[in-house]
């Protein structure tokens, strides 16, 4: 099923928002957090995400500054602490992700955030967290790489986010917001999914989504209704139970294989139950554009431009990048003449699209790298090229 838009998706043509008028600053203590009422604000994506984390009952945040996401740490160091959150600026992303391990293992909702180079540093820890099955939220506000790269927005970390990223066979659940509203909404979603599956969840945004300001509405959410008991957590061992051990070490290969099989079974369940996506004018589309996050907003505009020309174009926006909507791609491919994948990278998600298409129709790709955001006109040109000749515009690559 497509993701329920009423639960919050992009809202591009809204009025200017109501600023901070609805700000709720009534929470003061650790123990007596009041349930926040819905209110609407104009916020940066990073700030909206941070505000949502407080409302989602995130007990502790551990992070290290890096552009373009430092507002998350800054917002929480002020607003989060005022409202009872533990906020610790760690000495590195290595320390931060291992604090997340410790905090999640201790039974609390915890999170960290970073941008690409910092998220690379967290990969070892994420592998441990995935194996130990610790629920937590990790936010990557993607910037251009490789290397120190640029602080401008990018989607270059798609592979790292969706294919595991660290060592061993594991997967994160990856949510890709495309608006400030979703930067907030997906925090609640992420914590719920993390707790439901005892799995780390990543919100994969980009520098533009982190920095842009839009209207965002916060709905009522009571963390205590969403947080399950965690009898496995290390909280001190009462006489009534055996000790709890959080570990990713299983030195006997037979045991380690069993752990792996259990993880794979869980990932299968996640793939069956949690695929989320958005369709825009895809019903009658001769040409389908597949794009996520910021690139999907650009692709959405391109669809409008193409429709104005009389070309029936549509958009598939994967919201969960893992699990990826292979089945949706598969069934849509049968109804289209061709598919254009638009990304802010050299072509990463296009591989997953091709897996879904299974050679039924041509799959073309248009991408920009290094922090460059493609324009809707570029996307239109790329689709014209696919449509008229089957050969792509300059810089693209035709793939079947």
């Amino acid at each position, binding site marked *: 099923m497509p993701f329920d838009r009423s639960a919050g998706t992009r809202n591009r043509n809204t009025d200017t928002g109501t600023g901070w008028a609805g700000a709720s600053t009534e929470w003061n203590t650790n123990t007596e957090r009041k349930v926040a009422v819905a209110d609407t604000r104009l916020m940066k994506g990073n700030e909206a995400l941070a505000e949502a984390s407080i409302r989602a009952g995130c007990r502790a945040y551990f992070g290290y500054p890096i552009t373009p996401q430092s507002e998350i740490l800054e917002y929480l160091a002020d607003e989060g602490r005022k409202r009872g959150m*533990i906020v610790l600026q760690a000495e590195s992303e290595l*320390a931060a992700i*291992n604090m997340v391990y*410790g905090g999640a293992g201790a039974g609390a909702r915890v999170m960290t955030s970073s941008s690409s180079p910092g998220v690379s540093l967290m990969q070892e820890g994420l592998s441990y967290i995935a194996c130990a099955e610790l629920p937590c939220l990790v936010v990557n506000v993607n910037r251009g790489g490789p290397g120190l790269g640029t602080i401008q927005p990018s989607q270059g970390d798609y592979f790292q986010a969706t294919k595991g990223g660290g060592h061993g066979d594991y997967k994160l659940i990856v949510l890709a917001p495309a608006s400030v509203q979703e930067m907030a909404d997906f925090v609640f979603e992420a914590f719920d999914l993390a707790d439901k599956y005892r799995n780390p969840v990543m919100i994969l945004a980009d520098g533009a989504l982190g920095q842009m300001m839009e209207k965002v509405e916060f709905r009522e959410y009571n963390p205590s209704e969403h947080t399950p008991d965690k009898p496995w957590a290390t*909280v*001190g061992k*009462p006489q009534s139970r055996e000790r*709890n051990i959080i570990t990713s070490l299983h030195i006997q290969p037979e045991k380690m294989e069993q752990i792996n099989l259990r993880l794979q079974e869980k990932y299968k369940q996640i793939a069956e139950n949690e695929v989320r996506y958005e369709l825009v004018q895809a019903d009658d589309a001769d040409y389908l554009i597949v794009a996520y996050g910021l690139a999907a907003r650009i692709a959405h505009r391109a669809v409008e431009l193409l429709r104005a020309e009389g070309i029936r174009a549509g958009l598939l926006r994967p919201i969960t990048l893992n699990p990826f909507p292979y089945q949706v791609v598969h069934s849509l491919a049968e109804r289209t003449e061709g598919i254009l994948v638009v990304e802010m990278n050299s072509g990463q998600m296009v591989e997953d699209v091709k897996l879904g298409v299974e050679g039924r129709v041509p799959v073309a790709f248009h991408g920009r790298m290094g922090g460059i955001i493609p324009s809707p006109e570029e996307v239109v040109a790329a689709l014209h090229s696919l449509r008229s000749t089957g050969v792509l515009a300059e810089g693209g690559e035709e793939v079947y």
Partner: protein
Amino acid sequence: MSTDLTPTTSVGGTDLMECVYKKPGTLTDTKFHYCPGCGHGVVHRILMEVIEELGIQEHTIGVAPVGCSVFAYHYMDVDMQEAAHGRASAVATAIKRIHPTKYVFSYQGDGDLAAIGTAETIHTANRGENILVVFINNAIYGMTGGQMAPTTLLGMKTTTSPAGRTVDTAGFPLKIADLVALLPGAYYVSRHAVHTANAVRHLKKAVTKSFQYQKLGKGTCFIEVVSNCPSGWKMTPLQANKWMEENMFPMYPMGDLKVPKQ
């Protein structure tokens, strides 16, 4: 003639032998995997003895390292987390922040704490996290087969310093407890050993004090235990202890490095 070899402990209801020493209930029945003569088992026992005597088993959470003591949680009957290499104090930091009324300790070797985990070690103590850091220094990477550690002595032969550690190629032995003692967040820093009964008694007192300080929220307590590695050093246990006294102790002297101001 009786064939019953069970020791007689009571005759006519009168105990002949009083139980004066036993395995603490806070240690599991799992047999230690440590090599003969290794200090880990003794340190494990002392930690658990103190936890039992203080009655804090239900309120204690431990963090195991990567190294020979990676399986510390097999033996210590408290809730435990196994940390990534070097990150035990970061993991312990988060546990303590989330459960400030619990007792939290980390247990790490020299490669874990003083090489790959140096940043975490220093910053945890610098923040004055209210935890106990137990640091086992045997100047070698035991589990991976005896490689040079940051604390390896000059001239000491290991598999990665086969001609003996030299300053030219590997720099100097790192006295990380001395560094930690300089930090305002570190409340109590003390160096011990477990090769004699007397040393064991001293260590036990230090561990007890550390948990008491933790209860009072005083800051980071850091206990270094200079220990041996008969397998890695390629010595018998007795030779190893003698070598440790003669070579390790001059570089890593026993005693308090930092005590609370009166």
